């Protein structure tokens, strides 16, 4: 009986120590992961050395990823006065262009026909940008945010985004692909409104050309790119 009691007590103590160790590791990982971008890693490196700090970060990142807690809580730390919205432009043989965009954006201006990819009128003239009602479109917005404003490491996300839109567009009308000359992704820069004005489509920036020949996931029989 005494032995059983001793074993139970010892197990309880071990369990408690295990819980405390887990809690300590978890909190340390959270703090390291969040403090690193704001100078925490430099501080740690001064105490433990660069190599140990780097190892600590790798361990913390792996821990946070495994437990689903890898998030920097810097939402809205910079609000800024601009938004960037992606727009896919399909240039056809007859010079016309089709704009592919997600439904959450306001109407985009009509583009005059011509060989120019996006149209001089968009480059030279600021236009009023329609403010859509933002409701239940948070996921699409986040996706497009990563496509347009992510670092260069997000180029893979851009390829997928364009491919996905093209696939949806050509569903049921694959024969239209015969008319395509090239497909490009543009970034539309929208300036947030002043107190006395609407939001403005300020400028257009070419991000990349989508060349399906470099995309192993694109069906081989559907050719899209006919001009470089």
């Amino acid at each position, binding site marked *: 009986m005494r032995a059983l009691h001793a074993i139970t007590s010892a197990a309880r103590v071990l369990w408690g120590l295990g*819980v*405390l160790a887990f*809690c300590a590791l*978890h*909190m340390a990982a*959270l*703090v390291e992961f*969040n*403090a690193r*971008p*704001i100078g925490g890693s430099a501080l740690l490196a001064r105490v433990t050395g660069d190599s140990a700090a780097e190892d600590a970060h790798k361990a913390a990142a*792996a*821990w*946070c*990823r*495994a*437990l*689903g*807690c890898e*998030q*920097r*809580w*810097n*939402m*809205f*730390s*910079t*609000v*800024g*006065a601009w*938004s960037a*919205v992606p727009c896919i432009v399909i240039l056809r043989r007859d010079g016309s262009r089709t704009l592919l965009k997600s439904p*959450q954006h306001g109407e985009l201006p009509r583009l005059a026909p011509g060989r120019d990819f996006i149209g001089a009128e968009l480059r030279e003239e600021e236009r009023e*940008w329609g*403010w859509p*009602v*933002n*409701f*239940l*479109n*948070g*996921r699409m*917005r*986040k*996706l*497009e*945010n*990563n496509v347009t404003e992510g670092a260069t490491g997000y180029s893979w*996300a851009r390829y*997928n*985004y364009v491919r*996905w839109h093209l696939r*949806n567009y050509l569903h049921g009308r694959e024969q239209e692909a015969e008319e395509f000359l090239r497909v490009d992704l543009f970034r539309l820069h*929208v300036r*947030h*409104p002043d*107190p006395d004005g*609407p*939001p403005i489509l300020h400028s257009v920036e070419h991000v990349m050309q989508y060349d399906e020949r470099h995309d192993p*996931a694109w069906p081989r029989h559907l050719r899209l790119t006919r001009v470089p």
Partner: protein
Amino acid sequence: MRLGRGFLDFWFARLEAEPAAAFRVTLGCVLMFDVGVTFLPHLDQWFGPQGLYEAGELDWWLAQPGRWSLLDAHSDLAALRWAAVGLMVAAYGLIFGLGTRLCALAAFVLLTSFHHRNPNILNAGDILLRSGLFYLALMPSWRAWSLDRLLGRRLGWHAAPLLKAWPVRLAQIQLCLLYLFTGIEKCRPGLEGDWLSGDAVGRSLRFVTIARVDWFSGLPLWLGAPVTWLTLAWELAFGLLVLWQRTRPAALAFGVLVHAGIFATMEVTHFSFTILAFYWLFVPASVLMDMRGQSSNGERRLLRVFYDTMCPVCNRARRTLQRLDWLGRLKFEDLHDRPLCEAALPGVTYADQLRAMYVLRPDGRHFAGFDALRALMPVLPLFWMLWPLWMLAWLPGFSHLGRALYRYIARNRFRYASCDSEVCSLHLKLLAGREMDDEVVRQVVALHERFSKSRPQAAASGS
């Protein structure tokens, strides 16, 4: 030694399970909405092998240390559908508390699998939701408000509605760290100075792709500056504010208003609701039990309201409260019944009760005046609908104003009370703006004797 004891208590004390149960139910509702509205209609496009990411395209991302998914890119549409159904079942399980621990674990595993299948559509609320599910899987939240507990009792297994503190503490610390690091990020030099300059709230309302509508885009930026600075200060101080019991209600009330405002004006999916789920972990279990009207052992919980039956203003207030008491949570007592009041409220004098209405909660805490009205709000369903008023009542400026207003009205009842008897008029004049010394109390007692004799039934019912 005391420090050690305190440390161990912080992590291993037994806490009542109601806050964890409320946390569980809220997360279950959020999960149900998230999966039902944002995942299911777009399952193929977001997560399918022929959707946004072809089979194998994200293998390099999944290969990072710590990343895992049961739904790698090779999963077909049928597997995705089953996984989504599993998530919905887990959500219902959490809401009703059936197979609670298993559902929490399943929800965490499946949701993380979906998230790691396509990370490009995730917002901060998604990460917070899966963090919450992780902490929930560690908590025995089934110990309150659950079918698991009900079934256990039927089978003769009586588990106390208590749980060890440590998983709750982890979730609480997660929230505090969230606000702390958010606040620090907003103060960093070299950024556009939106928060320190006071422009952030105004600019957020002009954010074309996030702000719901353009109604507020015309407001000048300086108008949002007080809210910007207050929000920043609150985020930085949140951990300390919730640590101290006196400031905790105000900190939480401010947070509810902030996140409700964010949800009303910005499209941030379910972030506001997910973060507010964590707030339940800071709410005392007694408040939740009062709202439910039942203790953990099934006993009915009533709040006792002590009021002046001789005062027409108080009687009118009592009638109003009775009308608002849709769930039958209030019991009214006559403060002139001294034996009853002295037993129920030891340490509260007759003079104190003549100055203000008192409310006695089942946990033994009592409140007076405006604080008493505030203590009634959790049990009056109208205030669940008018919750902004309820939250405002806890904020420092508003609560001071409320107390001052109550004291003024209490002292000047005679100005707008319509008395139908000499006793009533004399009584109110006695109470108006005078110190409640023994002589005044003696006169009130004499008046009450006259009042009781003249209207014995009215005096008994308090009408």
